[in-house]
């Protein structure tokens, strides 16, 4: 990593030769990365950016795969429970509906947003952003949607939901006959693809691609 204390050198450099750590505000020379490399802040260890090879194509493939899995993951049964001849099923969607029907509409809304709404919105934002880069059109929308994506990031909770499924399975095993459904497999695949996508779609590269050829992006 470059020496950050040579402040006189830094002062004379143009902005695009510099980078500042997002988390601790340390200013330094922007390192040149080879494909597959990543740069960390020397002071606080925060990842500044990574350089993913063939980012656009790989990310597009992953987004499309995730969107295809979205419907079966949310609407196919995850768990089936049998008790004295009666069978009930649980899908991600039916959990939201059941909560809503039980009178806690606010909680139903939170569960809907964290497990279905925001994950879908995130994927759609990512898809449109990648397409605007791919087709080289509508960059202003791309910038706006990518900003929205960054605000949504924290609130999609597929992995927490998955842990919730596991805990529920343990709680239910002693109660009645339990079977897992095809929805669970789709849900796990969706979760894994989403994590993979988050690693592949390097924000720094996306912002660079979105701002290429634009000198000023004011409203």
């Amino acid at each position, binding site marked *: 990593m470059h020496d950050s204390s040579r402040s006189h050198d830094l002062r004379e450099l143009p902005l695009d030769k510099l980078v500042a750590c997002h988390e601790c*505000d340390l200013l330094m020379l922007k390192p040149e990365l080879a494909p597959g490399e990543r740069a960390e802040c020397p002071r606080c260890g925060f990842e500044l950016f990574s350089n993913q090879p063939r980012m656009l194509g790989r990310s597009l493939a992953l987004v499309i795969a995730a969107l295809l899995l979205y419907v079966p993951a949310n609407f196919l049964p995850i768990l089936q429970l049998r008790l*004295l001849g009666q069978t009930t099923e649980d899908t991600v969607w039916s959990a939201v509906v059941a909560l809503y029907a039980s009178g806690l509409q606010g909680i139903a809304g939170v569960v809907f947003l964290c497990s279905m709404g925001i994950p879908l919105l995130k994927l759609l934002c990512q898809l449109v952003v990648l397409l605007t880069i791919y087709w080289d059109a509508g960059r202003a929308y791309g910038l706006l949607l990518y900003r929205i994506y960054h605000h949504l990031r924290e609130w999609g909770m597929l992995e927490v939901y998955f842990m919730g499924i596991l805990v529920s399975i343990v709680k239910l095993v002693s109660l009645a006959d339990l079977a897992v459904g095809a929805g669970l497999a789709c849900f796990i695949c969706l979760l894994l693809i989403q994590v993979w996508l988050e690693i592949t779609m390097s924000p720094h590269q996306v912002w660079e691609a979105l701002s290429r050829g634009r000198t000023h992006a004011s409203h």
Partner: protein
Amino acid sequence: MRAIDMGILVCPECHQLNRHEKDCDGQQLCIRCGARVHARHPNSLRRTWALLLAAAILYIPANLLPIMTVRSLGKGEPDTIMSGVIALVHMGSLPVALVVFVASILVPTFKLVGIALLLLSVQRHQPLSARQRILMFRFIEWIGRWSMLDIFVIAILVAVVNFGTLAKVEPNLGAVAFASVVILTMLAALTFDPRLIWDNTESDDDHE
């Protein structure tokens, strides 16, 4: 050398560097993405305190009120968060009980105390080192969402345990308080500006 010392503002959204323009103070927009840029989040400490206090107040009903009731054959007892964990221990699934205990009791408590400590140590220059503080902040930020676990478990149980009078799970008001605590502490972590952690250690670093 901090970016702020050179009159450079980092965009909070796309991390583009912007030269600070003196004339449009407070209203400067990022040259790349158009987000509002500030040297530090405005009123970061005050907002974080407000969200944290709201969370701390709701923390009480979240733990005392029942979060769900399991009824079988018409009979059933309401469960609080803690009694749900104890039930899991009695069922013999200790690892799962541990996961639920950590996610629903330890993590929310740790977050309330941890964010308060961060705020105090930034405001009063207390002896936590910047490294310790940033590690704590990252941990709080990362772990925040996992507390939602219990809410998802309730949602799944309500949907799947639905056999009329034979067996039924109903959610209770404690769940609302608990979900609010999780959301408020997540928001508190978001409004806290981690750059403040390094600001009041800057002078120490310069002498090294």
